[in-house]
């Protein structure tokens, strides 16, 4: 078993563990931390997939921004107290649905001929260049998306001046 494979299993396990923690933990703060674990492991997986830039982005955006925002939100909404129930009554059904879908997806992965696998590194420079040439339009749109989200967050979350 190669080292990369071991690494993959480790990262994968951490990722899934984090995921499970997010959905199963009884304390919201723990959930947030588990999420961080999972997201960071995903960044590790990106490295395994030789997507270095993506790993960086992942750590920066998710590990930094998103998690912190989430923690803020959790604190602002004061749901940190231990007594609150976090799961809803349809939990068993949710489990059945998720498992069923998982089985389907695994079967799909297993039975689909994915074609010749020739892993190859993506050059960071090429990626960067294409992002601003080939993908200029989506890039522009994405910027508008961020702007809109900003405006929306401001409008919606900002306390009214007149109150």
């Amino acid at each position, binding site marked *: 078993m190669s080292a*990369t494979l071991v690494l*993959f299993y480790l990262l*994968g396990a951490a990722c*899934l563990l984090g*995921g*499970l923690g*997010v*959905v199963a933990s009884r304390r*919201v703060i723990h*959930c947030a931390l588990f*999420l961080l674990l999972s*997201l960071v492991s*995903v960044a590790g*997986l*990106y490295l*395994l*997939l030789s*997507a270095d830039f*993506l790993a960086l*982005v*992942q750590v920066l955006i*998710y590990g930094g*921004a*998103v998690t912190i*925002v*989430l923690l803020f*939100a959790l604190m*602002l*909404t004061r*749901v940190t107290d231990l007594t609150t129930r976090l799961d*809803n*009554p349809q939990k068993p059904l*949710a*489990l059945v*649905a*998720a498992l069923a*879908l*998982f089985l389907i*997806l*695994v079967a*799909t*992965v297993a039975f689909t001929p*994915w074609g010749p*696998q*020739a892993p*190859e*590194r*993506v050059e960071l420079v*090429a*990626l960067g260049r294409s*992002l601003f040439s080939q993908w200029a339009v989506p890039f522009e749109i*994405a910027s508008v*998306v*961020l702007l809109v*989200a900003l405006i*929306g*967050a*401001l409008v*919606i*979350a900002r306390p009214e001046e007149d109150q």
Partner: protein
Amino acid sequence: MIALEHFLVLGAALFCIGIYGVLARRNAVLILMSIELMLNAVNINLVAFAMYLRPGEFVGQVFAIFVIAVAAAEVGLGLAIVLRLYRNRASVNVDEIDLLKW
């Protein structure tokens, strides 16, 4: 060497964990977190496909970058709306918001 299927199964698992989270949680913020898990699962898929299947092509990675960007924005916006909800109702539990039904 790691086979593509490894990544795909991992992605599928994470995706389904995320789905479970969305379906089983009642706290709006936790639901948002679960959705982030799902998006990450998608990204694992995209990046794995990009690396394994078509040498020289990296649409998957580009796609993943955009997904990350959108996901981040989504979290921000979602939290803003949830905060507004909290301000109006003093709760972020989604089973308590059912004024609209039937």
